[in-house]
């Protein structure tokens, strides 16, 4: 189809209704295409362009509706009654006083639930409401719902629901939780072990004994709260025949559908889940939040219901990043060749396993990063405690696994007097490497060195101190994140479908069950459909996240949908295009081989004056009874995960008097494959980098005896516009991924993976202090400087 592209070029860029795709002066980032010989990336007109968001006009005007923005006539408001105890037996729940208050319609408890009353990404392990006789396991565990005519009445009545608890001994330290006699949280076992991990290659003990230098260090890696701007919210409606529709943001409508079915025992054909546009997510909305409660309350009250968590409830109740204590022994030769890495990890799952088993696997898998260790042993445990629940957060364990490794490497480099870049390249993956990471093999050219080279090139020289009393440092960090291509063993991710329809007027509809959590996947899918069908992007509608009418796409997690849904949409479009060419050929009276597709037209190759527009072909399909819709089920078989490399550089300035750290520059050099939308790619890298900056320098979720001491945004600080780096540079290295759509790899999570190590190493470079705990607040930095001097 080379002709098609040529014709498109001839006519210039397809009209997109806006003066320019790109604002004047856009992007200080660099895009570096690299031909690695693995595939030919076709010339493209719409894909690869920095196309503005298709939902941008709705979002800049605020008119985009999120969960809390829906209202229904006769709607009831819900309020959740939550446990004030970290661990207690529920002896009694009495809603009678609450129910007697004016406007209160129902007090709903576990006795109203007819199904299993359990949900969870890694098995049915979280009750949606704690029944009498069972235990609450964290502060915030839900025990009842109040439904009332107004939110105010629901909130007042919720305070009047009498719950009698018998407090139980609690455990907050995962090490303590593993000891005999510790209070037991798990349902199905007689201990608190959620999952363990063991990976061993070579003889670590022997290699460490023979190593010329050994770095030993223990890192205390903190948790992190998502602070997605939209607190969890939604509504549910119920038809007189019992059909329930739930409208709430999630990352996988089919998962939510299954959990409502599992918890409540409703048949799946009686439930519709609409995964609304999400006001941020970063993993948090891959868990059930309000949806099961909404369906339950609609079922009980037979009325539309609305449930909106306050910010404080959101922070209290949703699963957060797993904190972990990670012990390293890193052995090397005197010239910096890694010999052995012995790593021991203990992580806190919080009150329920949620997704801990999978996240912990990824965390442990991340430990070796992009390096070869001839001898390696990684072992660890993730353990239940009465702390807030831990779950999925951008990176999915990767930041916790990668960051300490990057720090130990800089300690080693310093000990040996080596350049941190040199030691990385000396031990980095080559084409012959066999990574230990599950499901990853080197199946396309290794771009590690290229990411390092480009990062250094764009970073420029290390800055000089801007004034007396400050010390400047530069840190570098290289990581090898993976992105899902085939879902591994996890059923939800195995296979992605899309359907594409050409409407009788030549417009297009793409149906695909992705969730738009803010990353711009709907824009990318529209670009692909526009490219393949040769129609303008504003004539394409994307139907996403609807369990009833958008085909199964699996969860929008693991940086996967650009690859998986991108492929599904692209192949569905190609099927439809083939059919359109046949119809154009039929109507023009030539064989299909003679039809040549230009932008918006099907042309007879030998006589371009004979042609049909897309509209004419679409209408002809409609009037002559030809299927205008094509469906494609995409499931990769070549690997479970794709992998790629990212190198980050951070320049920082430490004020030695106050401990204040100023981030001068962050660079992310990313092996993205074809950037389907470089504006989006850059946004993901910078956004992830900003969350990393927050995690490392600011975000301090304090928890004592299971109680969050930083319960709102007033106490839990995330970066503002004043806290970001003075400069943020991104390099997009386009080394194509052979099976990716147009060569694309995943990109969504990786700024969060690469940046923390760079900042920590920059602090080390500036001060000589390798802090083993973060966030490095000014106070922590100040104390460390005082202790040193």
């Amino acid at each position, binding site marked *: 189809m080379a002709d098609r592209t040529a014709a498109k070029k001839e006519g210039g860029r397809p009209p997109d209704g806006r003066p320019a795709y790109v604002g004047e002066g856009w992007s200080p980032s660099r895009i570096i295409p690299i031909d690695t010989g693995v595939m030919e990336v076709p010339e493209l007109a719409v894909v690869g362009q920095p196309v503005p968001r298709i939902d941008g006009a709705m979002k800049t005007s605020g008119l985009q509706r999120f969960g809390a923005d829906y209202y229904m006539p006769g709607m009831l408001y819900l309020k959740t009654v939550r446990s004030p105890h970290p661990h207690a037996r529920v002896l009694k729940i009495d809603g009678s006083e609450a129910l007697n208050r004016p406007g209160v319609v129902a007090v709903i408890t576990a006795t109203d639930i007819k199904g299993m009353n359990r949900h969870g990404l890694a098995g049915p392990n979280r009750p949606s409401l704690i029944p009498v006789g069972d235990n609450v396991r964290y502060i915030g565990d839900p025990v009842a719902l109040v439904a009332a005519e107004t939110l105010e009445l629901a909130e007042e009545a919720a305070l009047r629901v009498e719950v009698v608890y018998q407090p139980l001994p609690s455990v907050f330290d995962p090490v303590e939780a593993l000891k005999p006699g510790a209070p037991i949280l798990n349902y199905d076992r007689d201990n608190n072990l959620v999952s363990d991990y063991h990976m061993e290659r070579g003889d670590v003990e022997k290699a460490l004994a023979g190593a010329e230098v050994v770095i030993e260090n223990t890192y205390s890696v903190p948790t992190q709260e998502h602070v*997605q701007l939209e607190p969890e919210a939604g509504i549910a409606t119920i038809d007189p025949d019992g059909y329930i529709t739930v409208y709430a943001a999630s990352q996988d409508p089919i998962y939510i559908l299954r959990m409502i079915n599992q918890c409540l025992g409703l048949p799946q054909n009686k439930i519709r889940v609409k995964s609304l546009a999400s006001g941020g997510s970063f993993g948090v909305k891959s868990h059930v939040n309000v949806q099961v409660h909404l369906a339950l309350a609609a079922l009980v009250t037979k009325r539309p219901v609305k449930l909106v968590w306050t910010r404080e409830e959101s922070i209290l109740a949703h699963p957060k990043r797993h904190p972990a204590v990670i012990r390293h022994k890193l052995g090397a030769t005197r010239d910096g060749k890694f010999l052995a890495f012995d790593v021991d990890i203990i992580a806190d799952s919080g009150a329920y396993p949620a997704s801990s088993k999978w996240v912990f696997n990824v965390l442990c898998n991340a430990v070796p990063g992009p390096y070869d260790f001839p001898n390696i042993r990684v072992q660890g445990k993730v353990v239940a405690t009465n702390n807030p629940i831990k779950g999925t957060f951008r990176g999915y364990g990767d930041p916790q696994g990668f960051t300490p490794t990057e720090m130990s490497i800089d300690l080693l480099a310093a000990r040996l007097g080596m350049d941190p870049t040199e030691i990385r390249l000396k031990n980095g993956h080559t084409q012959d490497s066999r990574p230990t990471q599950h499901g990853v093999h080197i199946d396309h050219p290794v771009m590690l060195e290229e990411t390092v080279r480009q990062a250094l090139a764009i970073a420029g020289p290390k800055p000089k101190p801007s004034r007396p009393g400050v010390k400047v440092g530069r840190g570098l960090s290289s990581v090898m994140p993976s992105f899902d291509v085939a879902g591994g063993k996890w059923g939800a991710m195995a296979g992605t479908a899309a359907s594409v329809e050409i409407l009788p007027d030549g417009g297009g509809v793409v149906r695909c069950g992705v969730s738009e959590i803010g990353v711009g996947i709907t824009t990318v899918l529209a670009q692909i459909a526009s490219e393949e069908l040769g129609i303008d992007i504003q004539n394409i509608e994307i139907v996403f996240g609807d369990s009833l009418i958008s085909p199964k796409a699996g969860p929008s997690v693991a940086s996967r949908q650009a690859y998986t849904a991108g492929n599904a949409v692209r192949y569905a479009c190609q099927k439809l295009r083939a059919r359109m060419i046949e119809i154009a050929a039929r109507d023009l009276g030539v064989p299909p081989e003679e039809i040549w597709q230009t932008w918006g037209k099907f042309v007879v190759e030998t006589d371009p004056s004979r042609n049909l527009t897309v509209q004419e072909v679409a209408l002809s399909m409609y009037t002559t009874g030809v299927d205008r819709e094509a469906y494609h089920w995409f499931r990769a078989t070549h690997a479970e995960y794709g992998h790629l490399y990212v190198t980050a550089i951070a320049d920082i300035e430490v004020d030695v008097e106050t401990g204040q750290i100023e981030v001068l520059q962050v660079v992310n050099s990313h092996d993205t494959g074809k950037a389907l939308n470089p504006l989006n790619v*850059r946004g993901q890298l910078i956004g992830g*980098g900003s969350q990393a900056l927050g995690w490392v320098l600011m975000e301090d979720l304090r928890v004592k005896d299971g109680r969050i001491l930083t319960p709102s945004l007033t106490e839990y600080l995330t970066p503002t516009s004043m806290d970001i780096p003075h400069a943020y540079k991104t390099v997009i290295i386009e080394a194509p991924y052979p099976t990716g759509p147009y060569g694309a790899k995943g990109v969504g999570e990786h700024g969060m993976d690469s940046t923390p190590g760079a900042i920590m190493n920059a602090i080390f470079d500036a001060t000589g202090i390798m802090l083993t705990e973060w966030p490095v607040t000014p106070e922590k930095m100040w104390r460390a400087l005082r202790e040193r001097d």
Partner: protein
Amino acid sequence: MYDPQTIRLKINGVEEEATVKPYATLLDVLRDQLGHIEVKEGCAVGDCGACAVFLDSTPVCACLVLARQADGAEIITAAGIGTPENLHPLQEAFMDYGGIQCGFCTPGLIISAKALLDENPHPTQQDVKVALSGNYCRCTGYEQVIEAVLAAAEKVDGRHG
């Protein structure tokens, strides 16, 4: 004094009326009673800035203003700055520069940015950072938002100058 009271607001140029309780915030009334869902609630205590609106030309967090204090005031929301059919250059720049990801904080950012440009048509990067510092954005890391505001400033200035 605890009885509901009727207040009048001029919202995006349209006179509207609401009967409000004494403790109702401007945010509650705009969203729940008058349907202005373009004003988002991210925290309800003035931390996040998602509910920013102009109250008689001053940008405020609607969650920090009692509805009764706003009686008789003129309110401009993000949808009053521009709608999808008629976007303001700021809103276009947010699109062109990638200043939008999830879009939940965006209407608040638009208000703060508009307030800045009204007062200072030639802002520096530092001016923009200061002006947006009351608005949390968790997706973008602000960089592309700042670029968008600077670009819009040139565009607005070019158009009028």
